[in-house]
């Protein structure tokens, strides 16, 4: 056994240039697909984290196919329904910066709510609410910060509400970069300022979010809300989850389809190369047959030799991808999922992956490779060795 292992290693060293070339090529292929896999699964984890904290129901006023601002009284209407544990009105909307066609997501927060302040202190290091409320201040996401820096809005930014007034809002701080997936284009300000900037009237909110104490009562509560107002659109957390899953599957699937084409082409080249009757490998097999090696011994030898190459390449590729995503944020590949149309986003990532999927990738990668290499060699063992050598 050890002698054969030694022989296999000697063979590996003998053809090290060929094996190294294959190793680098395969490592590159694996690292690209693993990077996409890691980025996709990490973003899915991020999104799952955010969706867990979301309200169960979003209630919008929907008339004539358009979303309109909802009356503040809808919050009280929702709270009157049995089973609703929390309901709050949200004020948010897009501020359009016309010269560059960029959008900021303006969001109003209730800074008198202690729970909101506690959560805010987790994402802004130096938040002092009293100081924040002293004048018109705002907290901005990393993408907005880059935009403001580029156009020299270092201290404040002047919004132009629909009533043609000017709202000068000072930059108080920047939201943590780790929350970029959520906050890249976000501008947080007090509820009153947000209403002013977005032109939302005093007794109105953008929509109403509702939390339900018992998930089993969700359908009943949705029905009650529909009975309460006919001009509503109700979006549940499941709808949003399904929507995100579709986007991930679509984008991941598109990439996978392209990758499969590349991988198949690679395997085809390998298969053709190893099928050539004058290849070194076939002549080596013929010599081993003439030296008295059995067919299964030769197959195992070749399997081992290539298995070492393919497993090392797979592990190296995955390790490179892991480092690339975890420490360098996935670079350009990130744009596959995050897009770059609005404010540029280059968020950090923390890898989270499913071991079963990685194992699936391993099988998907190694089995075709071993098949493409070992099958032609196996066929050669059954041929006349002298004929191959001739």
């Amino acid at each position, binding site marked *: 056994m050890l002698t054969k292992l030694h022989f296999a290693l000697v063979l590996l060293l003998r053809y090290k240039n060929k094996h190294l070339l294959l190793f680098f090529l395969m490592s590159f292929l694996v690292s690209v697909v693993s990077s996409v896999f890691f980025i996709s699964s990490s973003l899915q984890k991020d999104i799952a984290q955010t969706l867990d904290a979301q309200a169960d129901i979003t209630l919008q006023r929907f008339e004539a196919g358009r979303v309109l601002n909802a009356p503040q009284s809808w919050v009280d209407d929702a709270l009157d329904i049995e089973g609703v544990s929390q309901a709050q009105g949200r004020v948010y909307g*897009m501020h*359009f910066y016309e010269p560059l066609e960029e959008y900021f997501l303006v969001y109003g927060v209730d800074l008198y709510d202690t729970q909101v302040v506690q959560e805010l202190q987790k994402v802004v290091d130096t938040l002092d609410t009293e100081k924040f409320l002293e004048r018109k201040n705002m907290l901005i996401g990393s993408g907005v910060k880059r935009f403001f820096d580029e156009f020299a809005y270092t201290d404040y930014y002047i919004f132009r509400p629909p009533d043609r007034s000017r709202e000068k809002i000072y930059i108080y701080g920047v939201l943590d970069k780790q929350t970029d997936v959520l906050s890249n284009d976000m501008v947080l300000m007090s509820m009153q300022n947000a209403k002013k900037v977005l*032109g939302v009237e005093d007794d109105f909110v953008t929509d109403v979010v509702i939390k339900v104490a018992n998930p089993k009562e969700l359908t009943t509560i949705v029905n009650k809300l529909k009975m309460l107002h006919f001009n509503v659109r109700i979006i549940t957390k499941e709808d949003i989850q399904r929507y995100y899953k579709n986007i991930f599957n679509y984008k991941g699937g598109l990439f996978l389809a392209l990758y499969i084409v590349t991988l198949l082409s690679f395997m085809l080249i390998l298969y053709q190369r190893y099928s050539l009757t004058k290849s070194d490998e076939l002549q080596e097999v013929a010599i081993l047959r003439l030296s008295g090696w059995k067919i299964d011994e030769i197959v195992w030898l070749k399997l081992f030799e290539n298995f070492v190459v393919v497993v090392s390449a797979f592990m190296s590729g995955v390790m490179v991808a892991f480092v690339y995503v975890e420490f360098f944020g996935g670079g350009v590949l990130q744009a596959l999922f995050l897009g770059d149309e609005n404010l540029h986003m280059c968020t950090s990532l923390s890898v989270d992956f499913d071991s079963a999927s990685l194992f699936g990738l391993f099988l998907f990668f190694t089995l075709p490779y071993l098949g493409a290499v070992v099958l032609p060699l196996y066929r050669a063992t059954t041929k006349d060795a002298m004929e191959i050598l001739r």
Partner: protein
Amino acid sequence: MSVLVRRFLVGFSAFFLSFFMLLSTPYSQTRADKLSAMSHITQLPSLSYLSGYLQQRVALYRDSSSLLYPNMLQESKRDFVYAY
């Protein structure tokens, strides 16, 4: 056991071990807490995540849904052709 085999076994085991050690790096809890906090504050699905095309569509949609914006988007035919 030959020196070559021993070196191979040691080297491959070390490689294997480092592979699993690297991959066992857990998802950052700090990141999870911060994302969760941000989500609690806004209760918004992560609009930043939406890729370019979708984001553009969402923006157009919201514009047309009479949320009053400072500068109403001037939607020319060319813009729509480009968007599609």
